[in-house]
């Protein structure tokens, strides 16, 4: 049995909340009361003062690290912190601010669909607008080593643990919705074949592109919108109350996946990469055309039919997926269109947009 590489160095704090949190996570097993107090105070103050929780580097990193305790691996954490009540308390404060901001900003259709059949129609209509995806088509037109390497870095935060946040939902659903979620997740996890686990296929893409496939290796480089995308799934997945939202999130994710992945694959092929690198994208063109139908009808639709009180949250989860992932995509596109890096910095061996590279290494567009 092989052990996956783990990140052993703690990430860099981005403000008072993540500073106080990282001091606890990397500190002695017995945290002094003053340490918890400093963190709680910093969190409450920061949530109140934040202009935009979704773009707040400090809050999104703190939330990401608190969720990371449930996923692992997090070798830089010195003690068993997963169920530390003081950390759960502060997570609740951050989540309240995060969810309130989402409920304020994520647009829902008006009027809301009246039943599950209308919900499915609404979800196809909502996701139809993303059928010709801006980021993916732009990448297929303007691929470069630097841009695609940044793209993989952003995606690595979620995709190296692809499907894990939605897996929390399995135990929280019943009947048809549970069976549909398991059917999708079974495919995500390789249908019994470890080499076909989607996260493993993505790791191969990263290695094939010369990138490090250790989960969170590039955590310091990714900005708040990328962390918010992952945190959104963890928020929905880790609360039974939000089981409608995690189902809706997965449905919207799958419904906007096949066509973009076709363009992503095309972008990599244009630069001369072969199936070792593009397998992940090729696999998702085919798999997600299946998952889309199951997720929309048998997962989201059946859940709204069996538990009608969850209908609005199913829709909220879907709309939040499109909104938050839209912010992440907009950030990348805006930066790259301006010839700037979309990352917070660089690392040795990583090609980023706007960095000095010898002209012959650049790919003609």
């Amino acid at each position, binding site marked *: 049995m092989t052990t996956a590489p783990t990140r052993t160095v703690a990430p860099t704090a981005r403000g008072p909340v993540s500073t106080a949190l990282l001091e606890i996570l990397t500190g002695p097993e017995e945290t002094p009361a003053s340490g918890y107090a400093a963190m709680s105070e910093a969190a409450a103050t920061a949530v109140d003062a934040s202009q935009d929780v979704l773009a707040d580097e400090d809050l999104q990193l703190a939330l990401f690290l608190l969720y990371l305790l449930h996923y692992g691996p997090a070798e830089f954490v010195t003690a068993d912190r997963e169920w530390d009540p003081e950390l759960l308390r502060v997570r609740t404060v951050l989540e309240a601010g995060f969810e309130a901001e989402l409920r304020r900003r994520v647009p829902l259709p008006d009027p809301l669909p009246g039943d599950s059949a209308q919900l499915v129609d609404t979800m196809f209509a909502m996701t139809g607008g993303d*059928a010709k995806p801006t980021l993916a088509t732009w990448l297929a037109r303007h691929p470069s080593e630097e841009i695609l390497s940044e793209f993989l870095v952003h995606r690595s935060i979620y995709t190296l643990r692809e499907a894990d946040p939605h897996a929390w939902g399995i135990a929280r659903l019943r009947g048809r919705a549970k069976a549909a979620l398991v059917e999708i997740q079974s495919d995500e996890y390789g*249908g019994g074949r470890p080499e076909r686990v989607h996260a493993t296929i993505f790791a191969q893409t990263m290695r094939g592109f010369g990138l490090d496939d250790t989960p969170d290796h590039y955590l310091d480089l990714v900005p708040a919108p990328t962390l918010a995308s992952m945190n959104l799934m963890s928020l929905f997945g880790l609360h039974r109350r939000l089981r409608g939202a995690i189902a809706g999130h997965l449905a919207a994710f799958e419904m906007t996946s096949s066509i973009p992945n*076709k363009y992503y694959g095309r972008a990599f092929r244009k630069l001369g990469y072969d199936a070792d690198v593009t397998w992940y994208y090729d696999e998702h063109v*085919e798999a997600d*055309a299946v998952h*889309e*139908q199951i997720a929309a*009808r048998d997962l989201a639709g059946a859940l709204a039919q069996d538990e009608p009180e969850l209908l609005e949250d199913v829709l909220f989860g879907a709309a939040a997926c499109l909104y938050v992932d839209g912010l992440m995509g907009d950030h990348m596109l805006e930066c790259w269109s301006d010839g700037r890096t979309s990352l917070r910095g660089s690392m040795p061996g990583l090609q980023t947009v706007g960095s000095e590279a010898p002209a012959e290494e650049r790919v003609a567009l």
Partner: protein
Amino acid sequence: MSEQDPRTTDDGSPVLSVAHDAEDPVVITPCPDGPLLVRGDVLIAPEPGAEPQKPPRRVVALCRCNMSSIAPFCDGSHKLANFRTRPPRYNIGNPREDPGEED
């Protein structure tokens, strides 16, 4: 956990078989404005006379719009093509029953 067969449904009745076998038929679902969803153990011959092959997943989506780049499988292109299917026109369980109004 009792010593009884643990495979029972919610109301306590036993589940006869959880394995998929010849008694477990393949189910084909035409998705409105989308592909045919085929659920079960199937082989697909790429063309007439060709050797049937096992698809890589247990549920496959077969293209109906003829726009797919990975035909016979669906790649989502029906959405770009604004492909529209007609509602079912045939009562599968009872072919003699009038399924509805004609055009």
